[in-house]
């Protein structure tokens, strides 16, 4: 990858060690994706906010970075570990470390979004705009539905792009690379619910070796809930950053059957039942909240139910009266955070959870180490409310 003279200077330390390190990251990912040059980006979305994920090494690292850098472009950040407006039983250590992380991002100029669905909150740039999105579900969603151009960035590559305002011109940032070589044929597979879409994405992520894949039997217009589910499923299991829908005649096709979907489900669905219902991975938007409201229709959940959503979406829902209607079912809102690696749900206090989210199921099982019952929202409400 060729750097301009001014970029070379920064790499050599003319603007200090933090900027040099940011360019070292861009150089490495540029080499990895065989980029020719760096291009400006207009928006960075950074992951690595929850103390439960980045740990002490991350806390100290961000503190150092914040001393020497300020974000050059609009930068939004992923969920943190808990809801700032609610009491919790987390340790002093967790709270102070989490606050340090938030402080570092704030110091660098990040918007306090604490959301994995920034595309539901902020004004969207025009199609074809280069961005740098780390959150895997947001990267896939933005490439596949919004026409934004990002690679499947990492927490550190998006951070480097936030600091420099640049990313390598490679892979999914180049129009020609956004045509998938492989198409998955999923004819005959039941696609009724968000969980079905999530499982299809999860399976596709395991199959795909490229950064873009096609689903030849899906329609490109799909319900927002399904779109978020398939994007987050794909982001969870693979390295794929985009998908297209519809027949791709030039691509090689692979047929998948119901059996493979069942196997993927069996892997995640470890329990038949659970003692806690979790919604919101990715965090729920207004469309999903209103769907949930319709399903509940005056019923009450027979066990604890937590809904993860961004503070912005929660406030909107509150304003239009939707939040209180949903709460009358006994469900409670949890803002600023997400179920994945939530410090609030551990094996000490929970045996197993029930969720409609494939991404949530994966992280609950493998990181939080609790059992999972995977059921779609409709079935879930029907089974656990009266």
């Amino acid at each position, binding site marked *: 990858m060729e750097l301009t003279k001014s970029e070379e200077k920064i790499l050599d330390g003319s603007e200090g060690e933090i900027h040099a*390190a940011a360019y*070292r*990251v861009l*150089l*490495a*990912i540029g*080499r*990895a*994706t065989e980029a020719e040059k760096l291009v400006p980006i207009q928006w960075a979305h950074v*992951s*690595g906010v929850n103390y439960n*994920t*980045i*740990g*002490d*090494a*991350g806390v100290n*690292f961000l503190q150092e970075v914040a001393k020497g850098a300020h974000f050059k472009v609009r930068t939004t950040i992923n969920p943190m570990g808990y809801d700032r407006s609610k009491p919790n039983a987390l340790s002093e250590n967790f709270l102070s470390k989490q606050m340090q992380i938030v402080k570092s991002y704030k110091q660098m100029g990040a918007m306090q979004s604490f959301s994995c669905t920034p595309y539901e909150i902020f004004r969207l740039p025009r199609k074809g705009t280069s961005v740098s999105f*780390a*959150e*895997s579900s947001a*990267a896939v969603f933005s490439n596949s539905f919004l026409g934004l151009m990002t*690679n*499947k*960035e*990492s*927490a*550190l*590559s*998006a951070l*480097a792009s936030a600091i420099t305002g640049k990313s390598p011109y490679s892979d999914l940032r180049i129009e020609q690379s956004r045509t998938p070589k492989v198409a998955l044929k999923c004819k005959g597979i039941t696609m009724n619910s968000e969980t079905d879409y999530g499982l299809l994405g999860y399976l596709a*992520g395991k199959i795909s*070796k490229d950064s873009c894949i096609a689903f030849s039997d899906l329609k490109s217009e799909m319900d927002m809930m399904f779109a978020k589910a398939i994007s987050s499923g794909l*982001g*969870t*299991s*693979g*390295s794929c950053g985009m998908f297209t829908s519809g027949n791709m005649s030039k691509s090689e096709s692979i047929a998948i059957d119901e059996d493979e979907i069942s196997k993927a489900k069996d892997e995640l669905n470890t329990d038949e039942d659970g003692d806690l219902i979790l919604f919101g991975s990715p965090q729920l938007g207004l469309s999903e909240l209103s769907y949930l409201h319709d399903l509940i229709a005056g019923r009450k959940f027979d066990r604890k139910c937590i809904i993860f959503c961004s503070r912005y979406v929660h406030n909107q829902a509150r304003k239009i009266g939707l939040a209180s209607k949903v709460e009358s079912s006994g469900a409670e809102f949890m803002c600023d955070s997400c179920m994945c*690696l939530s410090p609030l749900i551990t094996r000490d206090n929970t045996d197993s959870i029930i969720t409609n989210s494939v991404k949530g199921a*994966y*992280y609950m099982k*493998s*990181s939080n180490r609790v059992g999972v019952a995977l059921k779609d929202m409709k079935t879930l409400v029907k089974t656990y409310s009266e």
Partner: protein
Amino acid sequence: MFVVECKCVVKGFAEGEPLISDTPINFLTMIDTENGEIKDPNHNLYGKTLKGKIFVFPNSVGSSVGAYMLYSLKKKGSGPLAIICSNRMDITTASGCAISNIPAVYLKDNNLLQVLRNSRTMTVDCEGEQILIYQN
């Protein structure tokens, strides 16, 4: 001795034993950053550690936070000596290695992975874009 060609992503030089994973790695969920152990019970290298090894895997998958796991491993002295991606060098691995100064390369042809399997020790020479394989 064999020579396997590779592409350099993060410069450096390392010599040691390989630990080869045939399946992709999710650094956030599969690796214990305290000791470098593979903690996913479904992984065929379950219980083995990448600490002090040349870690070979197809590419990383899943969480974008995985890059921080590589950094944590390095800070705790539990990191790999070098990383070789046999399918492709993904952004999570590349950025994590760049911040942590872990030499990182990817194979020009993933069929070359077979050659790597036959080795007890190897030298990863990022600058020279080659991996030297010793069989005994």
